[in-house]
Structures are given as structure tokens and as C-alpha cells.
């Protein structure tokens, strides 16, 4: 097998210099003189009737062109379930919900006018958690649920606060529990939180006189925005253009429809003029969506030899005031509900539930970081009760080729080697030297491990495409619909193409901006599937370009095209390499000396659509929704001071089976970034809410994320069991780094303090309180 020249190389990322030097212009940086500016007024209440909105003073303020309230906007927007008015209508359902919007000549004038809008509220009882939401006679957040439009795969329950319920019924759990020597049943939970991407969300809208709508947006999914705008406002999608420049972080938070609908309506209110709305940090944290909270109940049983027999799982996702992506998050969690273990009997109900919290959208891991925390805690508790080492317990139960998932789809040849990953984690943590140790100074060192898996949660027809064009100098333009959100995708794709064409990645120009009018269609830059799907499309496009290059060259060189090879910028006879032409001479057609020109420009086209995916059965969950699973293991070592609960994370390790590492440096960075985010999720980051449902930490003064200096030493080892249908054997890895961290951290700290820790975030106070319980 030939040595790969451009795959498996740590090519410096193409966008690195501009970003580090502050040269990259983000959407929020772009302003033009004719632009109008918008600002939003938000609710101070978590649940209240809107009695009156008085906009008269605001309308008269300097520079103000329009003021809109919920009453001006009939209808709802929603990704899967049409439940959200762009501006609150009749009532507000979360702290920070937009209730009015101002358009003015300048951002300052728009913001100043907000204080002139008077809103009268009548507070309503606040629903503060999923369990409160499900109690009989709980206040209904969406009384009109029965009238909402929704996609067929979602099952809202009108008359309740349940926006979706997904069922998994595999095997027979009761007989599974009967066959179990050891059973545990436990509750796990955590509150909602946020993505805290460095770049806040922004959007502009303009409506031309011929009806064309032009949207610029910090979206991870410009084609989703296009189709949802079309559906929500009855516009032909052919008349909508969505343009996206590189983003300053997405993490799923920019994956759906965000500000675009509102900004479109604001532009409409000012006769189609260009209107710009950029979130302040506070708006971005609270008014725009964050991530779900969770309440889980898990009953798990194993036989005497530690083999899992049955799992009875209830996941209750706290979606906040609106469902957005969360109805699919709860569904995705059902599909993967057991974690990467072979469990023959599974009963799962996974619900998406409304509360009066700021609402949630997609977040890195998409239901899997949530379920993995709960399952990994449950597995630890079961292993402990069964008297089996927690790492050994996982080793016994890892899912392998031939086993079935909760949806009863068969794990095939492409299944990652989870046992190898666990072995690597064990070695990196030095697990065999003990998982708990009391130090001389009274502190306790302890280790925790976890396993994780994730497949992309996407529609069965999710797709991608790639178009290649050439320049006079023989360099290539790579055009695809994926967004650079900081994950280094464009660099990795350039490497894949470089390998196919046999040229250096520096000779490949990846088009940064995605314009839905000209870019090939792409489902969304989410779910860790872009490298896989666009990589496949790219390989097809490269093959197409090569065929065209050979076709033209065969005319000039007077030989069969199949005798030719393309590499190093030349097209030449494979067995007579000195006979050939520069690719540059044929890429835009070939011109003979006397002037005749033949064939024309090379345009390489490729596409990829998900293979053989199915919906899942509404009663049993049976089906094949997963394109490919990326799985792995993680672990942490902590040092805890039991007297006050304070701790340091000394080490965080991860081993993941990614099929093929395209760019080791970038892959390592993605995983470590995910691990850092997962640790933050587990120990530091969440909304704190008061009894009235108001978010107390609605700014970065008080919403804490991990800083340099607080990070542990990270170690990552990749395993490469090829994904046969992936580009060069690669499978997705963008999200997976976050998944196992909460479970591993909670496991390590629980081991250290000697008490279960089943709630996040893992603050020193919480651990200290658990320690006091132990002392009693």
C-alpha cells in the first residue's frame, strides 16, 4: 500500500494566522452605512401573562424606525415543532424571552429606546424542573400544543408539558431483571447551561424589490435556515439566500434557526431595508438558547459474572420554555440510551419536557453527554454493588460486532475497538496501581473512568456535496456547504483532496463563505458528520475531475485516458512518466499551437447521501438511524480535600477509535477541547436560578467556564479501526471528547469522598455536603 503523503499529517490549519492576528472579519464586525440596527427587550419574569406593551414613547425616540411586539407577529417558528413566537405573544415563558424589538439608525439609538418600552406583566406560577412539570395539574406552558405543526417523527402530548416521547422496547426487561444477580436503581440530574461560544450570534436581513430575501447569519446550518424561513413565512425557498462566513465557535448552539426569523420580520417592517441584530453576551446566554438539563432514573441489572442483563431507563430532558432541537435530543438519547454496552433487554422512555427555564437547542454531544453521565454513574454503582472493578465491569460489557444497539440495529465491521480504548485509558491512568489513595496530608487521590459512543443524529436523507474548479495556475478551488466553526474542517478536507489529487494542500483553496445560492447543498455542520460525508463527496468530485483531466490529456497525448495518471500537478503516462502535461494546461481546456481549443474547463462534482438509514418504530424504537458510531473511553484522576470538598483535576485522558486520523494535531485539539468543555459542564458550568426562575448568572461575571491554569494534563490516544465507508477510513470525532467527562469526573470524586455523587455541577460545596452525609 502506498504511503499517504497528506493524510495523517499535522498540517497547520489554513485559517490559523488570520484568526490569531485578529484579521478575520466575523459577521458582527461588518457594518455598512445604510444598515439599520435592531435591539431586543427581554422579560424579567420566568412565567407571566403580558398584560400590556406600551411602545408609544419608544416609537418617538431619536433614530427609531420601527418597534415590533408579539402582537405584530402571528404564527410560530420551530425546527421540528412550531411552538415559538419570534416575540412573546400573550405570555412569556422564560427569563430573558424577547418581548419587543426596536429598529433604529444606530445600535445605540435602538438600545436606548428599549428603556422607553413599558411592559405590564402578571406573574404566573413558575415550573422549575421536569419533575415539577410532570406533576398532575402542573401549570401548562403550551396550552395550544394541540394546534402546533410538527414533523411526523415527533410525538407531542397536548394537555401536558411533554413535547416528545421516544420509546425503546427491546427484549423483555422483566425477565432480564429476574436473571440479574445484582440490581441498582438511582436518580441522576443536572440543570441547564450554555455553550458560551466566543462569538455571539448575529444576523442581518434584507428584502429586495423582486422579493428576494438575503440573510447573513452566524449559523452552522444555512440550508436549514433557508428551508425553515420558507416554511415559517410562506416564502419560496428559491427566493431565499443565506450567507455564512466562518464562525467563532458553534458547539451546536448555532445549528438551528436563531435570530434569522425575527430579523427577517424586522426588515419587512422597514420596507425591506438591511437590518442587523447582534446578540450582547447576556442575550446570547439567556435569550438565545443554551443546553438542556436532565432528570434521569435508571434501573440496571447484571448477572453474577457482571454481564448486563436489563436496563430500565427514564430520561427527562429539561428543554426550557421551547422545544427547538430538544425534541430530537431526547430522541437521540433514546437511540443510544444504554451507552456503548451490549444490553439484551432495554426499556426506555425518553421525554422532552417544558419548564420555565431559558430554552435549549443542540449542544455538543446532542443528548449523549447527558445520557453518558447518567449511564456511567449507574454502571459505577452497579459494579460497586456487584463487587467488580469498574474498569473490568466495562470491559466485560462493551458492545462489539454482532451485538445490537437499543434500536436493534446490528454493529458491523466498522465497529470501533472499545476494549482497546479502555486498555489505553487504563494504561494512561495507571489504573492497576490503584483507583483510590489517601495521601499523607489528608487529601485523597482517586480515578474514574467512563465509556461513550455517538452516532450522528440527523435525518435519514442528510447529505453533502463538493464542487471543484481549477485556476490558471493549476491550483484547485474546493466548494462545499460546510461551515468552518473552528473545528478545522476545511484544513482536513484540503488534506483529503490533496491526497486524492497528489498535490500539496497549500495548492487547494477552500472557499470560506457558504452561500446557499451557489454552494452544494449540505444538511448542517453538526453531528460530527461533515468530514465523513463531505469527505466522501470530495473523493467523488476528485475522481470526476481526474477523469475529465485524463480525457482532455488523452486527446493531446494521443493515448487511452486509462493509461494516464494525475499527480504532483501533472497528467502523464503511468508507465512513461516523462510523457505528460501540466494539469494547469488542461484544467481550463487545452489550446493547440495553431489555436484550436478542446474540451473546456474541468468541474469536479461529488455528492454523498446517508446510506440505508431508517426512521425508528414509534412503539419499539426499532430501526437503523445511525450512520456510524464513534466510541471510546475516558478517565480522570483527581485530588480531593475531603474537609472542604475542594479538588483539582490532575489528569484527563481519552482513547477514541476514529477510524483514521486525518490531521493528528487538529484531531488532538478537537478532543482536548471537548474534554475541557466536558469538565466545565460537569464541575463548573450551569445556570443558577432563584425561586422565581430568574437566572442569577446571566453574564460572564457569574457564569463560570474553565480557564487556562485550571486545566489538567491531557492525554489522548487514537485507535484506528477503519470505517470502511468513510473517507480514507475516517469517522467523525468532533463532539465525542465531551461525552465521558462528567461520568468520569463524578466517578472519581465519588470514589474519593466515598459517597455517590449523582448531581451536577460538582461544586466543592456539594462534595463537602456528601462527605458530611458519609460521616453521619
Amino acid at each position, binding site marked *: 500500500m502506498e504511503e499517504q503523503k497528506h493524510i495523517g499529517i499535522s498540517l497547520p490549519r489554513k485559517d490559523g494566522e488570520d484568526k490569531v492576528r485578529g484579521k478575520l472579519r466575523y459577521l458582527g464586525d461588518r457594518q455598512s452605512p445604510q444598515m439599520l440596527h435592531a435591539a431586543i427587550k427581554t422579560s424579567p419574569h420566568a412565567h407571566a401573562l403580558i398584560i400590556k406593551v406600551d411602545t408609544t414613547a419608544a416609537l418617538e425616540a431619536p433614530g427609531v424606525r420601527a418597534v415590533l411586539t408579539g402582537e405584530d407577529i402571528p404564527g410560530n417558528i420551530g425546527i421540528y415543532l412550531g411552538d415559538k413566537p419570534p416575540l412573546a405573544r400573550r405570555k412569556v415563558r422564560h427569563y430573558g424571552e424577547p418581548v419587543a424589538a426596536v429598529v433604529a439608525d444606530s445600535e445605540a439609538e435602538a438600545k436606548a429606546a428599549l428603556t422607553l418600552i413599558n411592559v405590564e406583566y402578571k406573574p404566573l406560577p413558575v415550573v422549575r424542573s421536569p419533575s415539577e412539570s410532570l406533576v398532575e395539574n402542573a401549570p401548562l406552558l403550551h396550552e395550544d400544543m394541540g394546534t402546533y405543526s410538527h414533523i411526523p417523527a415527533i410525538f407531542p402530548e397536548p394537555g401536558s408539558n411533554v413535547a416528545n416521547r421516544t420509546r425503546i422496547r427491546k427484549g423483555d426487561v422483566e425477565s432480564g431483571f429476574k436473571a440479574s444477580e445484582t440490581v441498582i436503581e438511582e436518580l441522576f440530574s443536572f440543570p441547564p447551561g450554555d455553550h458560551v461560544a466566543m462569538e455571539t450570534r448575529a444576523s442581518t436581513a434584507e428584502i429586495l424589490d423582486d422579493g428576494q430575501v438575503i440573510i447573513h447569519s452566524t449559523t452552522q446550518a444555512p440550508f436549514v435556515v433557508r428551508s425553515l424561513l420558507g416554511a415559517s413565512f410562506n416564502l419560496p425557498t428559491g427566493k431565499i439566500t443565506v450567507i455564512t462566513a466562518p464562525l467563532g465557535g458553534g458547539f451546536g448552539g448555532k445549528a438551528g434557526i436563531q435570530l434569522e426569523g425575527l430579523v427577517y420580520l424586522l426588515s419587512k417592517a422597514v420596507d425591506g431595508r438591511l437590518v442587523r441584530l447582534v446578540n450582547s453576551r447576556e442575550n446570547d446566554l439567556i435569550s438565545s438558547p443554551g443546553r438542556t438539563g436532565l432528570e434521569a432514573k435508571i434501573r440496571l441489572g447484571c448477572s453474577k459474572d457482571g454481564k448486563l442483563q436489563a436496563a430500565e431507563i427514564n430520561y427527562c430532558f429539561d428543554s426550557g420554555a421551547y422545544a427547538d432541537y430538544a425534541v430530537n435530543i431526547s430522541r437521540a438519547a433514546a437511540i443510544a440510551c444504554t451507552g456503548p454496552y451490549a444490553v439484551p433487554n432495554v426499556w426506555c422512555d425518553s421525554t422532552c419536557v417544558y419548564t420555565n427555564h431559558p430554552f435549549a437547542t443542540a449542544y455538543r454531544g446532542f443528548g449523549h453527554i447527558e445520557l453518558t453521565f447518567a449511564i456511567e454513574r449507574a454502571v459505577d454503582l452497579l459494579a460497586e454493588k456487584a463487587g467488580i472493578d469498574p474498569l473490568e465491569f466495562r470491559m466485560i460489557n462493551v458492545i462489539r460486532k454482532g451485538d445490537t444497539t437499543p434500536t436493534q440495529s446490528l454493529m458491523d465491521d466498522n465497529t470501533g475497538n472499545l476494549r482497546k480504548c479502555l486498555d489505553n485509558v487504563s494504561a494512561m491512568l495507571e489504573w492497576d496501581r490503584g483507583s483510590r489513595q489517601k495521601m499523607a496530608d489528608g487529601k485523597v487521590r482517586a480515578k474514574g473512568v467512563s465509556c461513550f459512543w455517538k452516532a450522528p443524529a440527523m435525518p435519514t436523507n442528510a447529505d453533502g456535496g463538493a464542487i471543484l474548479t481549477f485556476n490558471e495556475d493549476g491550483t484547485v478551488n474546493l466548494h462545499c456547504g460546510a461551515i468552518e466553526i473552528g473545528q478545522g474542517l476545511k484544513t482536513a478536507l484540503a488534506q483529503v483532496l490533496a491526497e486524492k489529487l497528489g498535490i500539496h494542500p497549500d495548492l487547494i483553496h477552500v472557499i470560506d463563505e457558504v452561500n446557499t445560492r451557489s454552494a452544494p447543498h449540505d444538511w448542517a455542520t453538526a453531528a460530527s458528520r461533515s468530514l465523513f460525508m463531505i469527505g466522501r463527496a470530495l473523493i467523488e468530485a476528485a475522481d470526476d475531475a481526474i477523469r475529465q483531466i485524463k480525457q482532455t490529456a488523452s486527446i493531446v497525448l494521443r493515448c487511452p485516458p486509462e493509461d494516464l495518471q494525475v499527480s504532483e500537478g501533472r497528467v502523464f503516462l503511468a508507465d512513461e512518466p516523462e510523457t505528460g502535461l501540466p494539469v494547469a494546461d488542461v484544467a481550463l481546456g487545452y489550446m493547440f499551437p495553431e489555436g484550436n481549443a478542446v474540451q473546456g474547463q474541468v468541474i469536479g462534482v461529488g455528492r454523498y447521501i446517508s446510506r440505508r438509514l431508517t426512521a425508528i418504530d414509534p412503539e419499539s424504537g426499532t430501526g437503523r438511524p445511525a450512520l456510524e458510531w464513534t466510541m471510546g473511553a475516558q478517565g480522570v484522576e483527581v485530588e480531593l480535600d475531603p474537609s472542604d470538598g475542594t479538588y483539582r483535576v490532575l489528569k484527563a485522558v481519552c482513547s477514541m477509535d476514529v477510524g483514521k486520523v486525518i490531521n493528528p494535531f487538529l484531531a488532538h485539539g478537537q478532543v482536548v477541547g471537548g474534554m475541557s468543555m466536558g469538565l466545565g459542564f460537569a464541575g463548573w458550568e450551569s445556570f443558577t436560578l432563584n425561586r422565581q426562575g430568574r437566572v442569577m448568572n446571566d453574564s460572564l*461575571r457569574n457564569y*463560570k467556564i474553565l480557564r487556562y491554569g485550571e486545566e489538567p494534563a491531557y492525554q489522548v490516544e487514537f485507535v484506528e479501526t477503519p470505517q470502511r465507508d468513510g473517507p480514507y477510513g475516517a469517522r467523525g470525532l468532533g463532539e465525542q471528547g465531551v461525552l465521558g467527562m462528567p461520568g468520569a469526573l463524578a466517578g472519581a470524586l465519588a470514589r474519593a469522598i466515598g459517597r455517590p455523587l449523582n448531581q451536577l455541577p460538582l461544586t*466543592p460545596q456539594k462534595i*463537602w455536603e456528601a462527605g458530611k452525609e458519609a460521616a453521619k
Partner: protein
Amino acid sequence: MIPFDLEYYAPESIKEAVVIYTELADAGKEPLYYAGGTEIVTFCRQQTIKPGALIDLKGIAETGLLELDGEKLILGANITLSCLSEQGHFPLIADVARSVADRTARNRLTLGGNICGRLPYRETILPLLTADAEVVLAGRDGHRTEPLSELFDKRLKLEKGEILVQLILARKELGNKSWVRRREKHGPVDYPLCHMIGVKKKDHLAVAVSGLCAFPFRSDEIEKVINDSALSAQEKVEKSTVLLPGAIRSDELGSDDYRLALWQKDLVEMLEYMEGAER
């Protein structure tokens, strides 16, 4: 952004500053004195305050002094916390200053702002209280110098329009043996759950605390107890707890139980440290 216009003045002397303040206040313009501005900028952005004018004090030379002048250390109110954390005359206040916020914020945060602002922690007051500092204020009637202990009760008692100019400490207070511990919810860059300092003065152990109650304090009654050699460490802690000058805070940073447990643990450790220092 701050979405409204305001007037900005940059006086070069205290007298000028006070005159401008009086004029603006009388004209109903709601002026605010402005130093680092971290609180002002935050509240103006949120439009929870809307001052008509800001009077920038940073150009006034006497508020920027940091010098050891014979037997006195002069700390100007507009010294930044970064500056304070780097000076070597008074290591204890350097330690305290260094623990507030993060470096970027400390480049703007000032000693005077930390003491006089709206946030209730005012941590830099702690080493000033234990050092029996003097405070120099200036207002309509000119400058006055008073003992800090007489003018500080939960906050600094300033007359309207009065400016905090300097803090003055006696040289003999600068090198005392000291102990510091700052507790946070989770991670160093945060408001304090409890920030305590202990200072071994000539024959007396002084202690001051911020974050535990709703205001920072130094308490004579508590010091009487911890300096009572007839009591055991445990008794000192128990009696001190009863003498706390206010209710223990309970909020989203931490519960009152947790704060109390941390404070008591730290008090024991501080007493042990100071006892060891004596030997």
C-alpha cells in the same frame, strides 16, 4: 456598548473635581466619580444606571501616589490592583489585591473603587483595617485625615461629593506576620465566599473578614476572644462564631453552612499558624 451620551470631565486637581461635581449635581445631571470604571461600565451597558456625567479622577496626581515617605506608606486611591499586587512595601495588601478578579480586570480596578464601589466585598479594606490605616478624604470643605476605623462601618462613610484621596499606613504595620486565605465557590476568579486575613501586630492578633457576612469587618469583640490565652482553639472558634457582626450570607455562591464551615476551619488553621509563629 453604553447606548446613551454622557458628559466626561478630566479634572487635574481635587479642588477642580469637587467644583465640577457640585455644579453638575446642582444642575441635576447626576454625576459619578469614575476611576477604573468596571462597575460603571457594566451598569451603564445594562442601563440600570444612567449618569449624566462622569468625572475621571485618574488624572489627579495625589490619588496616584504609591510611596514610602519616611514612616508612612501612602497609597493613592487610584492605584490599580495590578500595581498594588506588584509593589513590595506592603506584601499583605499585594496578596489580597492579587486575589481579586483576574489580571485583565486588575489592570483597571482601583484601590478606591474596590473600597467605595457597589459590590459588597471591598477586600482591599481588610489589610487597611488591621493596619489601623488613616484615610484622606477631600470635599467641598477641603482635605481631612481620619482613622479608617472611625469612618468605615460596612462601607466608607463619605459625604456627598467627597472623594477618597489616599490611604496612609504606618511603616511599622507593613512587615507584620500575616496569614491569608480566600475561598471561592469553585475556581479562583470569582467573588469570595470568605476572605480572611490574620495579622500579628506587636502584641495582638488582628483579624478581618470579607464575604462571610454581607459586609467586610474587623471586630473588637472577636479579637478579644482570639487573643484570650485562657481559651482553647475550639473555644475561640465557638465564641467568635456567636460574635459575628451579622448573618452569614447564603446565596448562589454558597450556603451559610458551607461558608461557616470554611471560616471555622480557616480560623483554626490561622490560630495554629500564629501560635507556631510565636515559638
